[in-house]
């Protein structure tokens, strides 16, 4: 596919966009909040990818390579706007033991067959989504790349240019923070 684009078949690039748009959207949505900025950045990512396609050396998957361009483009945009990807003072939440029991009792072992459980499912989806949104941009991105896109640590390292050890440590903190935020929400609900 890459060779065909390089030979001048620009329409083949449309297939590349179609195949990688999901991953690019995941990165852009997690790092950039303004929808107008997202529009410009998404186009910029693919134009950069097209211009530097001859530099793609098949050392990684094409999607990972485009993901790296997406991450760098977003990173440079945030850098220009002096926005931060990860606040080093990001707080660790307190423990919520009672909410843990309430949370697990409410959600574990439910089937999706009736309207009641569907309501609970929607509730659960919304709460987790809102908790993800509260994470710093870098944590959000790492969580979605690992748990949603199911990328390996090496692939995430390739995209973000971070060492694998750092990614593991950030993911640990992100998961813990996510769990604590959700439990805090349930603690409030329980009260």
């Amino acid at each position, binding site marked *: 596919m890459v060779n065909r684009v*390089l*030979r*001048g*078949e*620009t*329409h083949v*690039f*449309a297939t590349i*966009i*179609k195949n990688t*748009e*999901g991953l690019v*959207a*995941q990165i852009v*949505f997690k790092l950039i909040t303004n*929808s107008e900025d*997202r*529009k410009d950045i*998404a*186009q910029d990512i*693919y*134009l*950069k*990818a*097209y*211009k*530097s396609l001859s*530099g793609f050396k098949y050392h990684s998957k094409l999607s990972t390579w485009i993901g790296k*361009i997406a991450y*760098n483009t977003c990173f440079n945009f945030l850098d220009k706007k002096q926005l931060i990807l990860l606040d080093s003072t990001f707080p660790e939440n307190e423990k919520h*033991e009672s909410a*843990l*029991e309430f*949370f*697990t009792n409410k*959600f*574990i072992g439910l089937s999706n067959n009736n309207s009641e459980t569907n309501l609970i*499912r929607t509730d*659960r*989806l919304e709460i*987790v*989504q809102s908790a*993800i949104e509260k994470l710093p941009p870098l944590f959000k991105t790492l*969580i*979605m790349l690992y*748990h*949603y896109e199911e990328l390996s640590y090496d692939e995430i390292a390739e995209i973000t240019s971070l060492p694998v050890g750092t990614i593991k440590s950030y993911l*640990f903190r992100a*998961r*813990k923070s*996510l*769990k604590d935020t*959700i*439990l805090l929400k349930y603690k409030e609900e329980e009260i």
Partner: protein
Amino acid sequence: MKTNHLLESEIQRYSLDKLNSDKQIIDHVHSCEKCKEKVEAYIVIFATIKEQPKPSFDFNLMEMVIQQLPQPKPKVIVDRTMIIVLSFIAFIAIGFTVVFFWSYFSELMAQIAPMLIYLVITSVVSLMLFLGIDLFKDYHRKLKILNYY
């Protein structure tokens, strides 16, 4: 079996990869309600992340990008066989010239002062050196641009 409660990292590892966890950790989770609840909370959270709606752009990205792509310049496709044939012809031509005009060359070399030969050699080597350095710098500049993207 571990008697103390599991560390957060152990709970996360168990929730992610139950099968490859230590037997001690597995036994502890089975017997400790508190740690079991923590594991279950993580498992529900991980499953819920996978159920999140996939983000998608509210505009036709493909169409917008394709419209902006520069029209491709026709690329000259170099045939490998053609290169071999042309190289062979060039080699024969050079060989023929050298053999045919050898007497003239040797006569010419004998007449040119050795000083002039050194001058020519020095100039050619310097020129080649400068061209080589320039080529190397250009290669690194292009590589830097590619690595940036």
